[in-house]
């Protein structure tokens, strides 16, 4: 309880320090919404040239894009900051974090509270609502349950990817942009039907790393479409379990990373 209050106080402080740069904050707020607008816009532009991409129509593709957008915005809002870990490791800020009586990960996340990313979450869910209206979905209780869980599962999965990519800095401080291949790359990968990708690339990202379960499989289950790639219909409902598995892996890697940092002191 006391610990929760401590985290709340940290969050409040961070909010106040963000507001101390008011002009920049407003620009950041709107450009973050802009980022999501452009993601959606890119999909619309591509569909100007054709009416089917990878065998899917615009409304169907947009459903996948928007599940990803909503989930990614939520993940980026909550744990996106963790990609600053390499900066903290290099600057020694992590040492200061470790001498405080709170958990290291929550402290790092609260060191730069991204209020600017909040509107983006709202926008992401807005697009999802529009995409749901554009498709004719045969609503069953199972699908209602799925659409409430799917964006959250996507967020949990993508958050785990954020933490995993950032943990890389514990072993390799100069990993630079490597992490974004999986975080932002994962977002872009799951914004389109995975049928567009070549078999090897798809096999790696979609099935080995699990990105198929972020938006593609849930969208198929919502639409009631069989998977052209051959996975059974229930695969869409596996999304939350895949997300939980990813979270467990991320937690283990993070703990190992902290232990490694403490034994090498970077």
């Amino acid at each position: 309880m006391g610990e929760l209050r401590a985290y709340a106080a940290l969050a409040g402080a961070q909010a106040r320090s963000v507001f101390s740069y008011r002009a920049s904050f407003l620009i950041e707020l709107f450009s973050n919404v802009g980022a999501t607008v452009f993601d959606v816009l890119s999909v619309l532009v591509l569909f100007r040239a054709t009416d089917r991409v990878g065998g899917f129509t615009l409304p169907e593709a947009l459903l996948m894009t928007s599940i990803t957008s909503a989930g990614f915005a939520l993940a980026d809002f909550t744990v996106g900051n963790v990609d600053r870990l390499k900066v903290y490791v290099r600057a020694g800020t992590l040492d200061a974090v470790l001498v405080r009586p709170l958990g290291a990960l929550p402290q790092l996340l609260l060191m730069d509270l991204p209020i600017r990313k909040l509107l983006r979450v709202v926008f992401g869910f807005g697009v999802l609502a529009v995409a749901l209206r554009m498709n004719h979905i045969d609503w069953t209780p199972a699908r209602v349950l799925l659409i409430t869980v799917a964006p959250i599962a996507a967020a949990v999965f993508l958050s785990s990817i954020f933490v995993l990519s950032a943990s890389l800095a514990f072993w390799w401080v100069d990993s630079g942009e490597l992490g974004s291949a999986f975080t932002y790359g994962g977002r872009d990968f799951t914004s389109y039907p995975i049928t567009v990708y070549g078999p090897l690339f798809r096999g790696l990202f979609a099935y080995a790393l699990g990105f198929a379960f972020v938006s593609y499989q849930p969208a198929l289950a919502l639409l009631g479409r069989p998977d052209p790639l051959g996975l059974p219909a229930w695969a869409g409902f596996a999304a939350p379990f895949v997300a939980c598995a990813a979270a467990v892996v991320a937690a283990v890697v993070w703990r190992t990373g902290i232990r490694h940092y403490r034994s090498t002191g970077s």
Partner: protein
Amino acid sequence: MVGKDASVLTISTVGPLRGSVTTFGALVGSGFRRYTTYRQATIAGTFTNIVFGYLRCYVLLAVAAGTVGGRPGGYAPDQLVTYVWLGQGLLSVVMLWGWAELAERIRTGDVAADLLRPVAPLTAYLAADLGRAAHGMLTRFIPPVVVGALCFPMRMPTRWQTVPLFLVSVLIAVVVSFGCRYLVNATAYWLQDARGPILLWTLGAGVLGGLYFPLRLLPESVAVTLWLATPLPSILQTPLDVAAERDGPALQLGLVALQLFWAVVLLVLAAVVQKRAERRLVVQGG
């Protein structure tokens, strides 16, 4: 008399023009060498570029496959492959993102030290950026292009002038990109914290510069407006269109001339802004 006094003060024995060319060259060299020390980050960044190359290439090829005639925006599939992979290579040559050095120096006040040097800050930063771009061309440009050419059917140049024109276009693109970044960073002189403008730039430059999709996929009026009214297509789309031979030789030359126009405009603008900022700095003491 005046001339004689001036000659007394001159330390270097070479003429002033040759002297400043030497200085500029030295600054370019140091920009180049500085990036050779970031070898691990270069490897990591290249890997990321390649992953995004696969992503974009597959998506665009899928779009082409669904288009009647298979030429979205007037690009044949092999031209799209050239567009995507050269774009991934050029991304870090023109350094669309991630330059906040000036803004950071303004925020911390270190920029005052730049004013003490005998070289104008704009010149010094431009030289360093050209050196960085040269390093990028050698290390970051080639790997994605090679991967793209090996994994996808890529269009090879068919006209003799394509390669030299492409190189000129890349050089100008670096200057245009630098000019934009400098102006965005310089907002920190007035705002203290330039994170907002930098983010806005990061966002707009990628989409409207032609990184995510070829700008010709937009309605024609929008594309033309972008080219004429903003410098953004001059940063990525123009050199890429030159390399993919999207247009006839005359139009290509025209697009490069347009790039040159923007390069000059932006440098002049940056110089004016810098002068104003310096006056402000001197008067208000940072």
